[in-house]
């Protein structure tokens, strides 16, 4: 069973969102469950800093040996930072999905919608595997 930290929020597209508490800037990555499903990640494309995105927009890609998946913006706002380390070493998505494998940060505009709690995400992933 892959780890699903309680303090994070989640999306149906298997991303996590951290830092919603202060309501300003959130950090986004892919979940351990998604990383396991993907297998060894070999390429990560993150959005450009300064891009304005709406929740649900495809903003990047995660590519593994067997497949490629879009990364979606889980919330609307402006991309204010991306993680150069994960672009250089995509295996960070596998080795530390909730830490060094983070993908980008978004300055929130408006209220995030449709995010899942850890409990809800646990239910979602146990139904899929």
């Amino acid at each position: 069973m892959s780890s699903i930290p309680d303090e994070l929020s989640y999306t149906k597209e298997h991303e996590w969102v951290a830092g919603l508490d202060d309501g300003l800037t959130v950090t986004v990555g892919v979940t351990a469950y998604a990383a396991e499903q993907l297998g060894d990640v070999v390429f990560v494309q993150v959005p450009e800093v300064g891009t304005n995105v709406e929740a649900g927009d495809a903003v990047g890609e995660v590519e593994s040996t067997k497949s490629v998946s879009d990364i979606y913006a889980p919330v609307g706002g402006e991309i204010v930072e991306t993680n150069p380390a994960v672009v250089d070493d995509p295996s960070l998505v596998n080795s530390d999905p909730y830490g060094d494998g983070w993908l980008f940060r978004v300055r929130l505009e408006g209220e995030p919608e449709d995010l899942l709690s850890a409990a809800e995400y646990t239910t979602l992933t146990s139904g899929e595997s």
Partner: protein
Amino acid sequence: MSRSTPLREVHESLGATLTDFAGWQMPLRYGSESAEHNAVRTAAGLFDLSHMGEIHVTGPQAGEALDFALVGHLSVLEPGRARYTMIVTEDGGVLDDLIVYRLRPEEFMVVANASNYARVAEELAERAQPYDARVEDRSDSYALIAVQGPNSTDILGKLTDADLVGLKYYAGLPGEVAGFEVMIARTGYTGEDGFELFVRPEDAVPLWNALSEAGAELGLRPCGLSARDTLRLEAGMPLYGNELTADTTPFDAGLGRVVKFDKPGDFVGRAALSGRTAPGRRLVGLVARGRRVPRHGYPVTCEGEVVGEVTSGAPSQTLGKPIAMAYVAADALEKGGLAVDIRGSHEPVDVVDLPFYRRSK
């Protein structure tokens, strides 16, 4: 409902991610597929290939029946040796690629892909009818375990007295491994030296365990289909359903050498294939300049025009770059400047000779 091999519980206990492949639940990977791939290139890997099909063709005219049914010249094969060959339709389209072992003078074993063996057995039975030969699908009588990689002779040598050093590439001999009766074949689909062990289904688990134990100190790792796919791709080996389909001929795939026009008598596909030896497209190797991966079905372009299609693609561990095989129009290959349309953006690729990887002997 998909089928399980006799090793399913072993895979589950090893924490494998299982996937449906051609109607079988097979291990996709046990942990990191890159680590599995590298183990085969540098040490050894252990594979469950029990989904493959085994069809026996026996009788005084078994060789003649196969000469008619397949594109190869099997009646001249020495007992104990094997050949890579194909079965094609009357139109020359590939129904499957096969390895045929001559077990005894009057007994051959045809190894076919999981997705095709039922059809292959049917075709063989029909094509063998005029001959004094019997065709029997014995896929359920075998499990198949492969040990592949530079350490495979040392690992297998710990468990058998069979003459592994004398066993040539594409040869097979009956023997005992870890006390179990097996057919030991020096064949594989990884580009490395290695063995494939045909064993009774009830012996598959103890044989797997004995191999795992013998290989532990020699870097042996269980490997899933994901590593198998990237290994065979680096080795430039075709996969049925990707490089080979009923719409391709052996010549399209650059494998025209398997078609033995000089053998006596007619064979299914002879007339069609004799007119199609110089196809207008070629199967080539592509190496991407960027980091995005050309994948199965992506268009190959030249000056914005579609000139071909990717059949297989993956990030290559050994080359450190994405690689692919693709069918490309011959005139576009002369022109050069190819790209692959990777989800809307045209990424430049270089054409290279296959295979991408060749082991040093």
